[in-house]
């Protein structure tokens, strides 16, 4: 559309600020709600490393709320 052409400007710094905040706060809220997750992650890395070769950076530990159920999701890609 003609008008869309004019609207597609570069993202403003305010938009970037909002997006950065939404991402970082999603992480921080989750971490603060379940402060044990970091320790759990460290422990998992220790245990799994004994048996298989893993890259600690790729391990994802997540606590998610689906309706009424809480799901602890752990993703461990193996090298």
């Amino acid at each position, binding site marked *: 559309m003609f008008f869309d052409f004019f609207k597609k400007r570069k993202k*403003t710094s*305010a938009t970037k*600020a*909002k997006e950065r*905040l939404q991402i970082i*706060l999603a992480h921080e809220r989750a971490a*603060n709600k379940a402060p044990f997750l970091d320790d759990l992650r460290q422990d998992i890395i220790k245990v799994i490393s004994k048996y298989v070769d893993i890259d600690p950076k790729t391990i994802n530990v997540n606590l998610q709320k689906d309706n009424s159920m809480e799901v602890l999701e752990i993703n461990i890609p193996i090298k």
Partner: protein
Amino acid sequence: MSGKVLTITSGKGGVGKSTSSANLALGLALSGKKVVTIDLDIGLRNLDMILGLENRIVYDVVNVVEKACKINQALIKDKRTDNLFLIAAAQTRDKSAVTSEQIIGLTNELKKDFDYVILDSPAGIESGFRNAMLPADEIIIVTTPEISAVRDADRVIGILESNDKTQVSLIINRINPTLVKKGDMMSKDDVLQVLSIPLIGVVPEDSNIVSYTNIGEPSVLHKDSNSGAAYKNIVKRILGEDVPFMEITEEKKGFLQSIINFFKE
């Protein structure tokens, strides 16, 4: 009488907690409520200067909780209204000089005689903040539209939630309409989309605040002040009135600008 404890806090420092405490305390007092405000930023006394009451301090909040004086002796009466009193922070002590039990004890006493006990919180999320937050019936979080202030506000909101504080609302302070329009400052709506708590007021950037503070006369005392008008609206909302939020805009737009905006929608 059983008054309410209203705590003004923020996480980040320098965002306008003390300015807001002074204006809301004075605004509520001028609306006929009996108000006492306590500066809980122990070691960094501030509210006395903003209110222009620094010459009248004899006893401070640490003296009161240590029972070195009676509560009455530490109540500093405002110059402009008989409805407002200040209890000053101690200047030569630090945060550890008071406990949250002591502050709760003090506010419980004050609630018997005052409609509002307004606590000006120190920055941070440590003991000074806890002392200000734990006695609160209602909490106002002050933030500016800056990324670090909003992030800290979110952290504080999380801590308040886990302490079962549910009466929490937000003041967005120092909105600069010119910057918002250029896209260089988050708007009121941007901030509200990030922080999920109800808004109680938007206060514009006001270059006159420096001089108001210089003379110890908060914005609400100045008829033409735009920050004063914003604080008066917040006072009404605290008192339960349904006041629409004013859009903070630049000076009136010309015809051409209106047409441009029309096509932008």
